[in-house]
């Protein structure tokens, strides 16, 4: 899912180190603006109200935007990135000063300002409508969004990856030549690289907790500085129910990314996109058939981490695993309450087991975390309770993309692998 869950509090460590850098003035100024942005989007109970970006003090109206585009040479942008703290504070200040007036006038102004001045707009899952003079061509995206978009033919000029490009499983198989490395660790945004990439649009995801910054950012001030470089579109995977944190399955989330992709010029009728969709359906059918032929076969998704223990995924909170369940796969549901996502983020997605409890949930097939954060299967050999697991003894382990790729092309490959593994697996529990 979003990449920082399950990394065992890594982000909070990073966050801790970064929040110290936040300018207190900026933080203070952020308050009213966020309320302005968020309030209409989530107080309207399900139906999404579109907040026109022109209403929000920081949003660039399309008029000034085109003006700005002429003015901003790359050198000029880089200079801006280097002098962000000053300019942001000043802009924010002006923005807030203007916000009172904007709130009052919002209803009347929005229609008149929007009319005729924009050719492209997209309303994201926060309810923020991003309007630009032309269709954005230069896109920077968080790695998960980037893989979703690149796999349907939307090129990237930069990627905010949550690990080094070479190690990020979401980026394998993608053409990354000339793509700027905006971050290579979660939230470690290089604003200069971002500015130098001259994006028209930044694409990321909505953090389910809503209180913090968007996915890919570890603090709001960085997000805000990125916002100065280009407007941000955030996609939400809680398509079923935001209030109950019910994620949509992988199809629902991928479809949402495809909507965005279409708006960004992707041709969903292109032969390879159509083929990928077809492969996905065929692979799904294979999994369905394989599962039906192996009643009683239990599948578990987990990762093991040095000195911490084993995290068993809760399938209800993972779009891909949820989809496996829909295909009839008997996914192990760990116990314990998912609890409050705002209080214990990891526990919402996983149950953490000590190594002594490795055999708590009997399973015949293990889907194992493929990120660099998990212990290698080789080093897990040193843990006897792991080695004794029936599925491990039988060699019934396949990689699991803990970071979901919202791409039919990639999911088709994974589904094919799962179908093969289920066909081959023996029931060992």
């Amino acid at each position, binding site marked *: 899912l979003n990449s920082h869950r399950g*990394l*065992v509090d*890594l982000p909070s*460590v*990073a966050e801790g180190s970064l929040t110290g850098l936040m300018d207190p003035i900026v933080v203070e100024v952020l308050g009213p603006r966020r309320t302005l942005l968020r309030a209409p989007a989530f107080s309207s109970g399900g139906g999404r109200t579109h907040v026109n970006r022109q209403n929000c003090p920081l949003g660039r109206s399309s008029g000034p935007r085109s003006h700005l585009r002429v003015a901003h040479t790359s050198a000029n942008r880089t200079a801006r990135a280097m002098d962000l703290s000053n300019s942001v504070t000043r802009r924010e200040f002006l923005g807030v000063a203007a916000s009172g007036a904007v709130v009052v006038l919002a209803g009347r102004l929005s229609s008149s300002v929007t009319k005729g001045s924009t050719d492209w707009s997209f309303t994201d899952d926060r309810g923020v409508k991003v309007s630009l003079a032309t269709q954005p061509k230069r896109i920077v995206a968080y790695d998960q969004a980037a893989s979703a978009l690149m796999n349907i033919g939307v090129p990237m000029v930069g990627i905010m990856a949550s*690990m*080094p490009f070479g*190690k990020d499983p979401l980026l394998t198989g993608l053409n990354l030549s000339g793509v700027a490395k905006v971050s*290579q*660790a*979660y939230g*470690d945004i290089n604003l200069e690289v971002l500015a130098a990439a001259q994006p028209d649009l930044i694409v990321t995801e909505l953090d389910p907790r809503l209180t913090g910054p968007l996915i890919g950012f570890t603090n709001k001030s960085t997000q805000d500085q990125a916002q100065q470089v280009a407007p941000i579109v955030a996609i939400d995977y809680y398509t079923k129910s935001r209030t109950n944190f019910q994620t949509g399955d992988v199809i629902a989330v991928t479809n949402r990314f495809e909507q965005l992709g279409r708006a960004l010029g992707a041709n969903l009728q292109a032969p390879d996109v159509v083929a990928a969709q077809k492969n996905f359906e065929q692979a799904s059918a294979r999994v369905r058939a394989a599962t039906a032929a192996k009643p009683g076969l239990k599948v578990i998704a987990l990762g*093991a*981490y*040095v*000195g*911490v*223990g084993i995290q068993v995924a809760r399938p209800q909170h993972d779009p891909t695993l949820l989809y496996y369940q829909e295909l009839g796969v008997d996914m192990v549901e760990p116990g*314990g309450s998912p609890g409050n996502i705002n209080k214990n983020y990891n526990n919402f997605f996983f*149950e*953490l*087991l*000590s*190594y*002594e*409890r490795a*055999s*708590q949930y009997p399973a015949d097939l293990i889907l194992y975390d493929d990120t*660099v*954060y998990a*212990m*290698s299967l*080789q*080093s897990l050999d*040193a*843990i*006897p*309770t792991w080695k*004794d697991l029936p599925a491990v003894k039988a060699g019934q382990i396949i990689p699991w993309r803990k970071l979901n790729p919202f791409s039919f092309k990639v999911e088709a490959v994974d589904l094919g692998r799962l179908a093969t593994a289920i066909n081959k697996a023996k029931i060992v529990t």
Partner: protein
Amino acid sequence: MDALRARSLSLAQSTRDANRTVAPQPQPVQDHGFVRAGRRRMFGLAILAVVLVFVLLASITFGSEHLRIAQVYDAFFHYNGSTADTIVRGLRVPRTLLGLSVGIALGLAGTLMQGVTRNPLADPGILGVNAGAALAVIIAARFFGIDDPLGYVWFAFGGAAAASVVVYGVASRGPLGATPVKLALAGAAVTAFLAALTSGIFLADNSTLNVYIYWAVGSLSGRPASPLVQLLPFLLVGALVAVSLGPGLNVLSLGDEAARSLGQRVGLTRATSAAAVVLLVGTAVAVAGPIAFVGLIVPHVARAVTGHDYRWVLPYSALLAPILLLSADVIGRVIAPPAEIQVSVVTAVIGTPFFIVLIRRRKLPQL
């Protein structure tokens, strides 16, 4: 100060006793007192040994997976490869031995450091051991792509050793050699420098994050046993050297001048102690990550029990430290089932209040 004076008096007394070859009049009262004190301390050691055995048994018996005593017994005497047997033999026994070794190492090293630097707040980290090990681990991850505990354990040990050599080398420059103050200053400076390098690499390339962060959480859980086996000889040598340094530390605690005038080779004692600390803490930090507070607290507890004689403080520390460490580990295992709390977190929770009390006490023990 009183204790110090009393000690130097008794020392002078014993020197006089030894020189008094003519007319060896027996002094039954004094001898009797000395023997009785020794017996009492021996008895104390025996009690601690018994407590340690109980803690070892508890560490094997209790864990996040609830096992009955009978199951634990069977794992040893009627082994049949059941899950309980695997947990006891495969996880709890190695983990307990790891805790025992690391505890002994930290306890002895903490006592040595406080004795050598005559600084009641010294912990083994003062020689830059932890900082050196951390830098080495992050270098192993960043530049050699080593992210496996089996691979980076030697880096950690090497880094710990190299950092201490540098600290000691810097501190020994100048006329008086490695004085306590110079050791503390050099240690702080080198630690700051190494920490800066570590953060530099860390910030430049966060891919090292996972390796470093898991290593940096001091924990006895899920650590493979083979690094300990590989490094055990170093630990044993370090422990033997440490225990043999008791008399030397006693003389050293009179101050450098007094120690020299009593014929003590101050520099040699210091260097030997530093070498023992490197062997002990280098091993501990390499196999279990940095575990704070044990090395700091235990010598104080030992001194409170047995007085200032390092011949006793050292063995007391060697028993008290694994008792503390393993108790903390058992607590960490049982308070959050089915998960666990890392031992370093528990020792920090226990250690912090103790540390505050320690530094707020009007009279720190004069070392």
